[in-house]
């Protein structure tokens, strides 16, 4: 029997995700044999270490694929693409893992959900996301998508005692599987029309032909639908508010950051590198998705009274901005979208970090009213949230401004004036609901003035009842004061540093995004 020719696997080029998967498996075994249920912060520290090692392994790759004498290339039988784009996406997702682990550590202890599964699932999910960013074959994109999503379905339902969390998991699972089916069917049609599932091959085939068949267009549309679900673009956004609201808050943050980045990475690569020559056919579709996302996301966010739901709708409108970069279909547009994803990752993780803390035990206090007077009790936390919200609104001197500027400038350069105007109007509408939260935090009265508890039961009521009453009131206030544990504090500081730092000294990060070029056929 002749030996089978197996592809050369350049393990070194897959190091970031292999380290994550290996780390996850080691952690699973360790956690399985742990005698105590609560092992302190060990799992979180281990996760951060693994992500850190993985980050270090990307440095060599980055130098390899950018700058002078760079060598962006296809590897592992052309199934993955090692270019600036994929390394960039890897780094963004790894950053989300680090911040996600920092947030989860205390959250899980607070909710008494300690366990190893959370971290294992998060690392596996991230490895799937990284594969999506790297994949140069539609099948590999699909595998990455499933690895990312299946772990996220479980994470969404991780808060076992909250029925909302279960509901979120089921909704996400059903709709996510549905969208995977769309994506898969899109792959099938594309394969039927072009004879390959390899994105580079598809690009080459399309360069050599001017004929577009209905089958090919159907495939393109179905791929767009499948990924549109994942990145929560209107009209495929229905799951987002419910899932974000029901999921444990750190999971919602990770979902918003990592899943969106991975989904967009695949979308940008497939459409720009694969279907680049078909742009006249897909640009109108992406245009419509972008405009709908911007308008629906911003307008519906205005009427929300739940901060998590509001952030979900705002994440929908952010998806619209990233789509603007794709719609431009220029290198500058892609760089703009990438920078947007980087900035958004830190803004949204920071926002969800604050929401995690304010949610307090039970993870249920997410109404706008729960933020009343936060600035008085926790000025630092209120300040951080203000910065993240202003950044999301696109106020200058924050990362959010440059991100919005980048995609809108690319759209104007590409001649899409209408969408640029719509984006700016949507930003103004969005500013309203971000500012509303800030107003509630700073200007409204204290929500914690609950009636003093039944300590005043007559004992010592004769002398100094008034003094006792004030003492209890302060007691209540301190007890209700939002606790900021170390891990979450570090996460907040990290997100703040990037959000403000990228606004004041944008050059390094902008350069970073500009060098993250896509390998084109």
């Amino acid at each position, binding site marked *: *029997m002749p*030996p*089978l020719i*197996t592809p050369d696997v350049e393990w070194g080029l897959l190091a970031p995700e292999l380290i994550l998967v290996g780390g996850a498996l080691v952690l699973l*075994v360790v956690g*399985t044999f742990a005698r105590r249920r609560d092992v302190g912060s060990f799992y979180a520290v281990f996760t951060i270490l693994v992500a850190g090692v993985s980050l270090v392994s990307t440095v060599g790759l980055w130098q390899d694929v950018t700058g002078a004498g760079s060598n962006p290339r296809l590897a592992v039988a052309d199934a993955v693409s090692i270019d600036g784009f994929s390394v960039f996406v890897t780094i963004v997702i790894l950053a989300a893992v680090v911040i996600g682990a920092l947030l989860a550590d205390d959250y899980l202890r607070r909710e008494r959900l300690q366990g190893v599964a959370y971290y294992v699932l998060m690392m596996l999910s991230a490895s799937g996301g990284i594969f999506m960013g790297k994949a140069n074959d539609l099948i590999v994109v699909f595998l990455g998508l499933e690895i990312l999503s299946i772990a996220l379905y479980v994470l969404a339902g991780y808060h076992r005692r909250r029925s909302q969390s279960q509901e979120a998991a089921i909704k996400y699972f059903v709709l996510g599987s549905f969208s995977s089916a769309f994506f898969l069917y899109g792959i099938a049609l594309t394969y039927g*029309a072009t004879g390959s599932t390899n994105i580079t091959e598809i690009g080459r085939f399309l360069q050599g032909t001017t004929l577009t068949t209905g*089958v090919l267009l159907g495939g393109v549309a179905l791929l767009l639908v499948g990924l549109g679900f994942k990145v929560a673009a209107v009209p495929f956004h229905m799951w987002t508010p419910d899932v974000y609201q029901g999921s444990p808050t750190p999971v919602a943050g990770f979902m918003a950051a990592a899943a969106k980045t991975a989904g967009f990475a695949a979308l940008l690569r497939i459409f720009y590198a694969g279907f680049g020559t078909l742009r006249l056919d897909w640009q109108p579709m992406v245009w419509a998705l972008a405009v709908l996302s911007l308008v629906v996301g911003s307008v519906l966010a205005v009427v929300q009274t739940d901060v998590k739901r509001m952030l979900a709708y705002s994440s929908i409108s952010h998806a619209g901005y990233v789509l603007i970069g794709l719609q431009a279909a220029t290198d500058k547009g892609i760089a703009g979208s990438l920078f947007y994803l980087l900035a958004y990752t830190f803004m949204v993780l920071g926002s969800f970090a604050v929401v995690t803390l304010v949610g307090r035990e039970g993870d249920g206090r997410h109404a706008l009213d729960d933020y009343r007077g936060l600035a008085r009790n926790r000025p630092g936390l209120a300040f951080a949230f203000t910065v993240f919200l202003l950044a999301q609104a696109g106020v200058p001197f924050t990362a959010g401004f440059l991100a919005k500027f980048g995609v809108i400038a690319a759209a104007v350069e590409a001649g899409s004036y209408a969408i640029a105007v719509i984006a700016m109007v949507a930003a103004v509408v969005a500013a309203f609901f971000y500012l509303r939260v800030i107003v509630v935090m700073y200007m409204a009265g204290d929500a914690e003035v609950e009636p003093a508890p039944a300590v005043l039961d007559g004992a010592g009521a004769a002398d100094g009842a008034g003094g006792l009453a004030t003492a209890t009131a302060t007691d209540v206030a301190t007890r209700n004061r939002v606790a900021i544990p170390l891990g979450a504090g570090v996460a907040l500081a990290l997100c703040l540093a990037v959000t403000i730092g990228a606004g004041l000294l944008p050059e390094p990060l902008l350069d970073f995004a500009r060098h993250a070029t896509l390998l084109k056929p």
Partner: protein
Amino acid sequence: MSAFLLQYLTVAVFSVAAIAMVGGMLGLGSLVRPTRPQSQKYINYECGVDPVGTGWSQSQIRYYIFALLFVMFDVEAVFIFPWAVRLEAYGLFGLVEMTIFIVILALGLLYAWRKKVLRWA
């Protein structure tokens, strides 16, 4: 119609044939068979036994976990079988890959065992 789309004609012919065959057989059956409606004939078929309870009744979650573990190793067999048939052709590469695959799946079983889901009581 382009030559390309003509290739899909096979699919269309197959679909039409499938529908025609099933429809034809059922249709022919309905013409010949005697019709004597009885209420028992309309209840759900459950292994020949009258169904108990409603369709929404709750069942033990343990069945689900066992089913899940079963599916896991069932799928494993799907991959192991072709590998075993062509063992020599895959050589060392195949052996290493399959070992990694089985070890990762075994970790899942290990996790399930330590989480005490294998205990029925």
